[in-house]
């Protein structure tokens, strides 16, 4: 049964992807790519990757769609020129597809527990997590403890991208933001649409609560800083869409967001440095407390909080940067 369902979802994924590329209207393409992300999240869930599914649903279907719509509102939603060299590109793509498919023929069969990738490294991580970290979610353990360096690097990539967007479109040229917005006193956002507004306002606190749950329950179930950051950012973006961007900026002003971007990354690095000061290696949490297992756990909670704060700050800053350029 799962096999049939899985093939059905994969086929749907392919159809959506081709529709995304085929759609002449960019608005349609962006909407379809939101559906694509949701389908992809379902596929991840069927493939036992609950954490990844949660991330893809929050980031791909939620935030990515909002950002693309923001970019469309600042540019255009029509594709003008038809593709030149269409046949040539199709031919090249067809040949490359065949080459990739030929490459996949040598792969170990899908789901094979004896495949080389499953027998060497993964069992070690599963065992060591059970003994040395003692948290149920192995993905969180690997993410924040075993591969702490790498995650730190990724937090700084997110940080850099956020700063880059702020440099590119964070500053206004010419007109002040107040001049672009709707006339004074007129409600902005979706405030004059009663039903979306009422339903949305009811949803905002629950989405935020769910985000906090995902953040702090990440050691026990699917979740963690990356997903929580995306979900909390999504709740505030929803608030901004309903009540207007200005109200959202009253809740979390730009200065606070910039503080969050750097504060989260700093918190992460500070945990690493604290480990060094207490006699361990950089990002070695077992020296943080007397009991190494408890030290690992407190380290993971701290750096996950850092990740969550940075991701929330970056995603919201990017949203506000797009929103302040036009009116949406």
């Amino acid at each position, binding site marked *: 049964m799962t096999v049939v369902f899985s093939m059905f979802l994969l086929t749907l994924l392919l159809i959506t992807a081709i529709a995304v590329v085929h759609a002449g209207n960019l608005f349609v393409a962006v909407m379809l790519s939101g559906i694509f992300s949701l389908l992809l999240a379902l596929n991840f869930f069927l*493939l036992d990757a609950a954490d990844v599914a949660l991330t893809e649903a929050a980031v791909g279907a939620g935030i990515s769609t909002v950002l693309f719509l923001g970019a469309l509102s600042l540019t255009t939603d029509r594709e003008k020129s038809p593709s030149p060299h269409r046949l040539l590109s199709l031919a090249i793509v067809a040949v490359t597809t065949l080459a990739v498919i030929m490459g996949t023929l040598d792969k170990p069969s899908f789901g094979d527990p004896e495949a080389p990738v499953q027998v060497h490294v993964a069992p070690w991580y599963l065992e060591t997590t059970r003994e040395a970290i003692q948290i149920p979610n192995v993905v969180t353990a690997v993410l924040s403890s075993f591969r702490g360096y790498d995650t730190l690097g990724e937090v700084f990539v997110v940080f850099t991208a956020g700063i880059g967007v702020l440099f*590119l479109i964070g500053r206004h040229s010419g007109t002040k933001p107040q001049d672009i917005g709707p006339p004074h006193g007129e409600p902005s956002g979706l405030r004059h649409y009663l039903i979306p507004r009422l339903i949305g306002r009811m949803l905002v606190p629950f989405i935020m609560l769910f985000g906090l749950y995902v953040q702090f329950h990440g050691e026990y179930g699917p979740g963690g800083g990356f997903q929580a950051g995306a979900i909390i950012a999504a709740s505030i973006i929803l608030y901004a869409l309903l009540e207007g961007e200005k109200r959202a900026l009253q809740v979390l002003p730009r200065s606070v967001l910039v503080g969050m971007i750097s504060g989260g990354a700093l918190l992460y690095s500070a945990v690493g440095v604290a480990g060094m000061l207490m006699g361990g290696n950089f990002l070695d949490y077992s020296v943080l407390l007397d009991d190494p297992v408890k030290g690992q756990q407190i380290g993971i909670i701290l750096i996950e909080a850092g990740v969550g704060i940075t991701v929330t700050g970056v995603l919201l800053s990017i949203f506000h940067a797009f929103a302040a350029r036009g009116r949406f």
Partner: protein
Amino acid sequence: MELLGLYHYWVFAILLMTGFYAVVAKVNLIKKLIGLTLFQAAVFLLYISVGMVEGGDAPIFTADNADSLFSNPLPQVLILTAIVVGISTTALGLAIVVRINEVYGTIEEDEIQEIDRR
């Protein structure tokens, strides 16, 4: 089972090349970025498919799955962070497209090159 295994890889290949087609053949910059996200999604799907173990559980310990088989947590960790990094870089790309539109007044690649040649 055999067929499903191959099907996962074929979907990966076709998705990858659908994204690739959008990147090389489309002239609209936003469409190119959408193509890039499709390309990225295909790679994510490949990694997660490779890490899946038939009959395994999601790699989260609960009270009653102590002896069961688990899917490989490592590709999941890689892809989880890659998704968030991906959205950040996409946002950076979109910001560049918005700036290009402000300067050139268009986001079609051929028109931008036309303006550059003048």
